[in-house]
């Protein structure tokens, strides 16, 4: 039981990671693939942020009465990763819009069937 509850954040991370990858691989719809990609990236946010949190820890500001602090560094890193993720998703969506204009659809097999 401790293997599950003690590492709950890791189990959720792994579930999101695999779910994202699965969606990315099996869907033929270009938008759904992007959703998979976004889920995969979200799993990374959890992977970084969860170990930085201590139960009962506060923000790392020195003050009377507090001795336990959470690490702020993972949060900062993930802020950056979220920005990267948003940029990737924006670019991906822009590409899907352009693909729809050029090919008239966003189903992968329909697009690949069309000659250049």
């Amino acid at each position, binding site marked *: 039981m401790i293997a599950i509850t003690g590492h709950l954040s890791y189990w959720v991370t792994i579930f999101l*990671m695999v779910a994202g*990858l699965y969606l*990315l691989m099996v869907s033929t719809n*270009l938008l759904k*693939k992007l959703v998979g*990609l976004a889920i*995969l*990236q979200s*799993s*990374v946010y959890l*992977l*970084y942020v969860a*170990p930085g949190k201590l139960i009962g820890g506060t923000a790392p500001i020195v003050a009377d009465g507090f001795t336990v602090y959470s690490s702020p560094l*993972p949060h900062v*890193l993930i802020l*950056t*990763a979220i920005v*990267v993720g948003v*940029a*990737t998703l924006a*670019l*991906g969506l822009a*590409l*899907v819009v*352009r*693909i729809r204009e*050029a*090919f008239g659809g966003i189903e992968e097999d329909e*697009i*690949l069937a069309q000659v*250049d």
Partner: protein
Amino acid sequence: MLAHLPVLQVVLPLIAAALIVLVRRRTFAWLAAVAVSYTCLLISVLIAVHVARNGAMTYAMGSWPAPWGIEYRIDALSSFVLLLVSLIAAFIAPGAHRGLATDVLPERHYLVYAMYCLCLAGLLGITVTGDAFNLFVFLEISSLSMYVLIALGPRRKALVAAYQYMLMGTVGATFYVIGVGLLYILTGTLNLEDMAERLRTIEDVRPVLAALAFITVGIGLKLALFPLHQWLPNAYTYAPLMVTAFLAGTATKVSTYVLLRFYFGVFDPSELFGRLHTREVFIVLSGAAMVIASLAAVYEQDVKRLFAWSSVAQIGYITLGIGLANEAGLTGSIVHMLNHGITKAAIFVLIGGLALRSVGAPVTMASLAGLGRRMPLTAFCMVIAGLSLVGVPGTAGFISKWYLLTGALDRGLWWLAGLIVVTSLIAVAYVWRVVEAAYLLPAPEGAPAAGEAPPSMLATAVGMVLLCVYLGIETSVSVGGAREAALLLLGGAR
């Protein structure tokens, strides 16, 4: 001033990219890109000289000392890759003004240059940084701009190629950052040097193995390690030609650098190449790349795709050296990054010249017919660069293959040495198809009139081809630098 050079490598192209988007003038954008490329080359040379004389160079970002702050650290390997990237950028940028004309609408040119500067900033940033997470950010800066550059290609399939590359590239980068995350949870540091030291003291190796697997697959996707190369042929084929030249010369090489950095600088190489069978995996995958991709190139009709397949094969040679992991093998691998980068960039610039003359139509084998008479200099340069791909003595390609052969024999792998020779013979087959079309077939009816590519592009290509020959004869700088880097990698973390 000298102390701030490492950070200027990143800051200058970033500022230029912003300026280009603000000004939106085609000629200004081109001049800015050329100026930035040459300034970066100058800085790279200064850094390389400094590193060769005084050893590794460090820069504390914002004066925060390592390992708390982000540290830029340039050693013999980084300075070698830095030179490679900025050299190819400096070659490509001047010819881009004419070279882009066939592929991209003139009013969009400034976007190409802005993305090019961002990509350059990312690639140089990967090379100079000593921080694992900072490396991820630069990896994504260079990749995102690369996806845009590919999507700007002239045919509509460019969009699909960019989309597919974006999916695979982002999965690769995400895997890399998962691996780094695991290492960070274990060690509590992101500084590569610090991380290596702390990993030595860790007993539970299972998370380290998971991190190793994620980083290998992630970076393998980025560098098109067989069989993770699926994005490469389409991306190279549909991107604007000058973009392909830049991409082929730099992107996969910088990713290889990241792999080398992690394998020999962070993880324990004796563990990696001893108990973990990394050697066998790399030798098998590289061998498969060399054989299968070379064969695919032999049967290809589209000239761009032919040389894209050849790139997959040549990346196989580079990763083969990583698998050998001895002095000669690694030297061969590192020097092949430079030699192949320049050779392949030269070939794609030459194809760019061809495309300009044939007004928009894809360059196929048939359109090469009679090239020797219509564009004698272009055809001649193409043959020399082709010989360098094969690895004929007197060209750059020979030097790197010689070191790889020596590396294979040092390990006692006779069959592998044989495989290197056999795959070189397959390379003869696809290069011969180009030679045959150019010199032995008559020009078809309605072929474009005789005339060379525009002088700026021709100068670029001739310069790179001359460098190919020069690097095949005078090797003290290229092999010297590569050996220095190889010894550094093999000497443990430093």
